[in-house]
């Protein structure tokens, strides 16, 4: 059984079938929609460039071919490990032999009503309805999601205020220098970017800041991160922290005492697993990781005797204005950033990230695939920094304003 009918859950069911599993296969999804893709929601769907008929991840004939017991519009509300049973919101109890948890995340919210969030197709359509030339949009949170929405709203002619508590947007993720380059794009496109401000509540007509100021807007989008959907797993005996905690194979870890039943794996945004390539536990909210991990845990569940640790180089992309940002690896907690190709001021560069003496990540803006791929391979090969990046210039020394 697979719980969560999106990128990770779908990849898991497809892999189970592809690898020869012919038994009963149940896929449970809280949303009423057949599995669809989320990245276009903050891009082509929000801008109106695509209609929603482009979103389904698979055609209905391809889904039918999987021979699923597909239950949409109903959430799993409990897991009884000893009985190997999942309990659904409508009271149904569904037994399983093996279980893959792929319930993803949901947006964090702020106190107060009336704000938009952006996670589902319904969210995207509701926000799109509010965007029009001259309307004022307040975006709380200048992470990748908030940045993409701000870019689209500017493209539609809205006045956009982007509020960010950190002094430099995305600095914790990509480093201060690269964060500054990315946020310069907002300023160049006429977004009012205000950093170092804390929003305490959503109010009528805008948002309230910690110092009492009201920032006015016709619509408010809150994009301040997400929370793993693990409530239905609380108290079931599995270890839940920030996500469902898993070992290097993606198998859920047990609280104590360890019950007899096994065979619970997790994949996608909800899974916090130990990535042995980087030697740290991580939870990755990236589209490619969801599919790759869904595939990997499906294989591990099906063939426990030939289990393989899941050791990907995480990959992420983001489209903002005319910039295509691509990142490989694990950038968080890095010790140093160096520009190894192109230059920051031209917004065409590859930046490399060092953690200890390892090359642990690269981030590229506007670079051709062939300029990026060798770096990905070096990360996968656990390349030492001093061997890979001998002549790099530290980004801290680069000129950032480009003027």
């Amino acid at each position, binding site marked *: 059984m697979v719980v969560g009918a999106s*990128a990770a859950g779908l990849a898991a069911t497809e892999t189970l079938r592809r690898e020869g599993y012919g038994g009963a296969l149940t896929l449970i999804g809280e949303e009423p929609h057949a599995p669809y893709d989320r*990245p276009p929601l903050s891009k082509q769907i929000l801008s109106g460039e695509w209609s929603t008929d482009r979103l389904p991840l698979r055609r209905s004939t391809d889904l039918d071919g999987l021979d699923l017991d597909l239950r949409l519009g109903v959430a799993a509300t409990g897991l009884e490990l000893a009985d190997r049973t999942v309990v659904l919101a409508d009271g149904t109890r569904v037994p399983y032999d093996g279980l893959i948890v792929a319930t993803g995340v949901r947006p964090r919210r702020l106190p107060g009503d009336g704000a938009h969030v952006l996670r589902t197709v319904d969210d995207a359509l509701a926000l799109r309805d509010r965007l029009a030339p001259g309307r004022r949009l307040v975006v709380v949170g200048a992470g990748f999601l908030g940045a993409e929405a701000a870019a689209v709203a500017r493209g539609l002619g809205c006045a956009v205020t982007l509020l960010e508590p950190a002094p430099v947007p995305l600095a914790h993720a990509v480093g201060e220098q690269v964060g500054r380059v990315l946020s310069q794009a907002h300023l160049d496109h006429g977004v009012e970017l205000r950093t170092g401000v804390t929003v305490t509540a959503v109010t009528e007509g805008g948002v309230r800041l910690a110092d009492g100021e009201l920032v006015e807007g016709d619509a408010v989008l809150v994009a301040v991160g997400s929370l793993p959907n693990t409530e239905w797993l609380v108290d079931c005996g599995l270890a839940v922290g920030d996500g469902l905690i898993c070992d290097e194979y993606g198998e859920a870890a047990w609280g104590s005492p360890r019950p007899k039943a096994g065979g619970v794996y997790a994949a996608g945004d909800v899974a916090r697993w130990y990535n042995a390539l980087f030697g740290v536990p991580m939870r990755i909210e990236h589209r*490619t990781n969801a599919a790759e991990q869904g595939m990997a845990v499906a294989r591990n569940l099906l063939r426990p005797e030939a289990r393989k640790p899941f050791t990907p180089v995480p*990959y992420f*992309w983001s*489209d903002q204005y005319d910039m*295509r940002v691509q990142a490989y690896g694990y950038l968080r907690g890095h010790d140093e950033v160096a520009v190894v190709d192109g230059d920051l001021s031209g917004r065409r560069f590859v930046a490399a990230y060092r953690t200890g003496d390892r090359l642990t990540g690269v981030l590229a803006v506007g670079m*051709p*695939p062939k300029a990026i791929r060798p770096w990905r391979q070096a990360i996968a090969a656990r390349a030492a920094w001093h061997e890979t990046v001998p002549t790099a210039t530290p980004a801290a020394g680069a000129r950032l304003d480009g003027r």
Partner: protein
Amino acid sequence: MRVELDEPKCVAAGQCVMASPEVFDQREEDGVAILLEERPGDELLDGVREAVAVCPAAALRLVEE
């Protein structure tokens, strides 16, 4: 078997090239995928299926003819 690429959907992630370099490449200027083999031989199909599954934009399909 025929490979279908929905080009406007492609986000130039290059996962297909890593899964199946015999069948996929990427355009130099924007990274959008290129089909090198529209009808790959049987020996390549495992790689193509992997590519279809990992493509983060659901831009690839393998169709029976």
